[in-house]
């Protein structure tokens, strides 16, 4: 009996933490199968807008659920993506374009409007409160529900969601629900929310499917990222450099560390070039290679990572000359080789070095990093400096305790 119990315990430990992500074919073939199917289903313009190189697959075999999330070029995956529900071989059951504009930072639930746009211009509006559709006093789910659109037979209707959500992105559960709300044949529902607590049609639970894994912050080859900008003395080209800050605790710039997220916040750089050849944008930030060593306070090997779609609460943009931009590119590479030190050279120091090399000026107040220093550059300090610019009327500075998301990166160029 005891042996059986230990075997069960061991089995539970081994398998309970496994995130199932199995498809019956290889990941490359799976994405290729979805890509082929979408090529036949989407308009050429919509298909061309999808960036399959950053597609993210997830699945739960026990639920026969396979989802592929494909970002849209030059837009953060947190806010603009296509989500496809497939079988294990990549055959598509349904899919939607999703664009999300958050209107508040209420945690972990949608509260706001969800608008479904068909390609013929018809739409459904659903009022959501805490993830459930509100049943209006008149008995109609929504006034616009009466005008039910015909979903185009051969086309996948795009979705525009205007809702509030507290996460850094949208969870798998929520984007599965976006599919579920629209339903395979157009739209369905995820349950009713009755504010008065009675008199409605009751409530159906929202399906919880999965959770987001921690974000990936793999090291990038900075030289290859900077190479995408090409010549920096191009006639007619414009260049901007933006320093952006994600404060540790959302809506509370006074906090220097978030002990729930194990985060001191983050400061990063957005480099942008607009020329006749097109727009190129790269978003990069500085990280410790082995973050668990930072607690010791010494130098740690560092890396530069792609911060596309990273949240921020403040940013300051400057237009720079070609020469200034070239200096920023050089600084981004050179300082990327420095070691990370939580007190003396952290992400804020890196971003400030690049920003200053481009010709920017920011008087950042230094804050003591508890147990490490009397005064260091910190994301909180950068936030305060940008907020000071906002208060002085600088139109290129923005500071708002509510989070927003930075744009996409072009990626590496060979």
């Amino acid at each position: 009996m005891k042996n059986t119990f230990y075997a069960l315990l061991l089995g539970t430990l081994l398998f309970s933490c496994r995130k199932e992500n199995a498809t019956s074919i290889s990941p490359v073939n799976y994405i290729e199968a979805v890509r082929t199917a979408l090529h036949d289903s989407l308009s050429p313009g919509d298909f061309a807008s999808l960036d399959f190189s950053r597609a993210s697959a997830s699945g739960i075999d026990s639920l026969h659920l396979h989802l592929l999330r494909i970002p849209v070029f030059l837009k953060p995956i947190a806010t603009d993506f296509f989500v496809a529900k497939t079988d294990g071989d990549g055959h598509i059951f349904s899919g939607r374009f999703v664009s999300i504009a958050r209107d508040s930072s209420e945690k972990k639930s949608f509260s706001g409007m969800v608008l479904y746009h068909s390609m013929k211009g018809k739409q459904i509006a659903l009022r959501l409160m805490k993830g459930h559709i509100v049943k209006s006093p008149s008995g109609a789910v929504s006034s616009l529900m009466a005008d039910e659109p015909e979903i185009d037979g051969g086309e996948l209707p795009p979705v525009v969601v205007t809702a509030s959500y507290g996460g850094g992105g949208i969870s798998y559960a929520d984007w599965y629900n976006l599919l579920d709300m629209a339903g395979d044949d157009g739209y369905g529902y995820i349950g009713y929310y009755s504010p008065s607590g009675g008199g409605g049609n009751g409530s159906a639970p929202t399906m919880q499917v999965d959770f987001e894994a921690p974000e990936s912050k793999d090291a990038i080859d900075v030289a290859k990222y900077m190479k995408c900008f090409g010549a920096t003395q191009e006639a007619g080209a414009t260049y901007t450099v933006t320093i952006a800050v994600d404060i540790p605790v959302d809506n509370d710039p006074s906090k220097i560390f978030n002990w729930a997220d194990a985060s001191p916040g983050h400061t990063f750089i957005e480099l942008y070039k607009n020329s006749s050849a097109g727009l190129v944008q790269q978003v990069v930030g500085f990280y410790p290679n082995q973050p668990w060593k930072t607690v010791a306070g010494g130098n740690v090997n560092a890396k530069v990572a792609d911060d596309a779609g990273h949240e921020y609460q403040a940013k300051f943009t400057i237009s720079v000359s070609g020469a200034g931009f070239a200096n920023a590119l050089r600084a981004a590479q050179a300082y990327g080789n420095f070691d990370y030190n939580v007190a003396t050279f952290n992400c804020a120091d890196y971003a400030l070095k690049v920003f200053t090399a481009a010709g920017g000026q920011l008087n950042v107040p230094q804050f003591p990093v508890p147990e490490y220093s009397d005064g260091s550059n910190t994301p909180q300090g950068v936030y305060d400096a940008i907020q000071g610019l906002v208060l002085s009327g600088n139109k290129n500075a923005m500071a708002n305790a509510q989070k927003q998301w930075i744009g996409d990166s072009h990626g590496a160029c060979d």
Partner: protein
Amino acid sequence: MMLLKISGHPLMQLFSFCILLVGSAYFGGPYIFFLYHAVQELLAYAIFGWMAIVLTVCALFFTGRGEAVLQFIGVVLMVVSLLVFIFSAEHMMNIYVWRQLIPLLTLALFAFMAGIVVRKFIKMGGL
């Protein structure tokens, strides 16, 4: 047998819990460091964590069944503390470091210790 006895000692349980490495892509360290700071902000995971530590320390002053029961309650609270910690973070960013070998080994050590404590508890007749 001797190894199991040493492994099941309350001090080993405390050690594996305190040195467990956690952290985000920006910052990380032993779990005790986070418990120390988070309890000052009365975060739930820190309160559970400190309750677990106190109970396990109390187990040092008992023997036999009393020790096993206190250790078992301690380990349950430790697991609860970790689960609250993990799920209270945005996108579980605070366990980013478990992608790397050494932090993962500290997690495995804690899981092993938890298993030993549960085994000890059952051997003593459970509740």
